[in-house]
């Protein structure tokens, strides 16, 4: 590893790097968002229906909770490296590895959200003559939205934050700059790191805003921007 002398002046150089390379950084950031977005879509498509169905029938708590424990113990680097050996270098292996990372929190929270819906509300819905699918769509899902969305937000932030690591396996994005100190020097590495921080903060805020928008009005009092990990019980 080539080491420039690092001191506080490096920050000045880092900001200069950002100023000089705006278009380059923006295209790298978009590349990273593309990868993260594709991965998030896959994990939502797999984990959300699975969690909702399991929660609706109150089955498989061990599977739903266990996934998140095992998921937390799987280091992102290990996942990325393993899928690299299985699927080759490039977009697909990173997308799959990141999607696996996102599955845990979404599955756990959508299971928990639906599973913990007040039984009285469900009984009342059944008493009103609702079918299973009506109960799910009109009662359980709306009540579970805050929790489900918290899971999606945790997954999204985790995926965006991990995406730079994918650069070691040809994932592209801002990580390309961070892992290539030889070409970009410490100033470039630090500048790209600052952009990554900004990017994940923006994703976090955007999802918090969407969460408020999709939460049914009567449920909005509950804390939306809290610790993203709090709802995820171990």
């Amino acid at each position, binding site marked *: 590893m080539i080491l420039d002398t*690092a001191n506080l002046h490096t920050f000045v150089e880092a900001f200069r790097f950002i100023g000089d390379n705006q278009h380059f950084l923006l295209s790298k950031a978009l590349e990273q968002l593309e990868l993260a977005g594709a991965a998030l879509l896959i994990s939502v498509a797999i984990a959300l229906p699975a969690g909702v169905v399991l929660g609706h029938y109150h089955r498989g708590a061990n599977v739903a909770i266990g996934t998140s424990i095992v998921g937390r113990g799987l280091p992102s680097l290990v996942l990325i490296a393993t899928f690299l050996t299985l699927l080759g270098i490039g977009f697909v292996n990173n997308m799959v590895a990141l999607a696996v990372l996102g599955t845990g929190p979404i599955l756990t929270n959508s299971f928990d959200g639906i599973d913990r819906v007040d039984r009285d509300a469900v009984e009342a819905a059944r008493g009103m003559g609702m079918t299973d699918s009506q109960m799910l769509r009109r009662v359980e899902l709306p009540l579970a939205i805050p929790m489900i969305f918290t899971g999606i937000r945790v997954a999204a932030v985790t995926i965006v934050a991990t995406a730079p690591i994918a650069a070691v396996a040809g994932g592209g994005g801002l990580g390309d700059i961070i892992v290539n100190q030889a070409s970009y020097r410490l100033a470039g590495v630090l500048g790209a790191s600052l952009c990554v*921080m900004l990017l994940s903060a923006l994703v976090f805020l955007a999802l918090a805003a969407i969460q408020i928008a999709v939460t049914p009005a009567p449920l909005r009092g509950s804390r939306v921007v809290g610790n993203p990990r709090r709802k995820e019980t171990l």
Partner: protein
Amino acid sequence: MQEHWGDTLGPALVQHIELTLIAVVIGFVLAFPLALLAHRYRVLEQPFGAFSALLYTIPSLALFQFLIPFSGLTTTTVEIALVAYTLVMLFPNFVAGLNGTPSEVLEAARGMGLTQRQVLWRVELPLAVPAIIGGLRIAVVSTVAIATIAALLLPKGLGYPIFLALKEPTPFKTEIYSAGLLAVVLALTCDALLVGLRRVLVPWARKGLA
């Protein structure tokens, strides 16, 4: 795996355990008094909580790089970042545990004439042990995972053989699989040890209260 044990994997595993242990111990020492403070003065909980949530959104790779100008390419840099992440996971759990005592229990304790300090040490703290251990489980497992990234800065820990293997034109599968497996096994072993600790400390909480 056997032939690489002595020269690579063994030392890497020991370094990995060291990195994790130091981070979690320091994180605990910082988070515990902060949680007591937030428990005593409730106004502090929101700002502390928001700050730790903000820390969590910082990607580990970026945070490591961000700290280099301050503390260089050293173990200190890695530990500062790891400690920051443990705080995010420990603090909310500790506070939730301390604040989670049922009000009847608190009333009863006060009715028995316990002072505020006695209530904390004899009632609230023992009842918070499952939540405290729950926080430690999350922190330890996550730190084991994040510490693999530290290898991008330092030739230390289980991430290092993986980064080296990835640099080869055709990545060495053995290194990736064996170091990866060790990291996962280490995380799950630590988790199991903490569950065991909870059984010993709070035998009444068999059914996952944490």
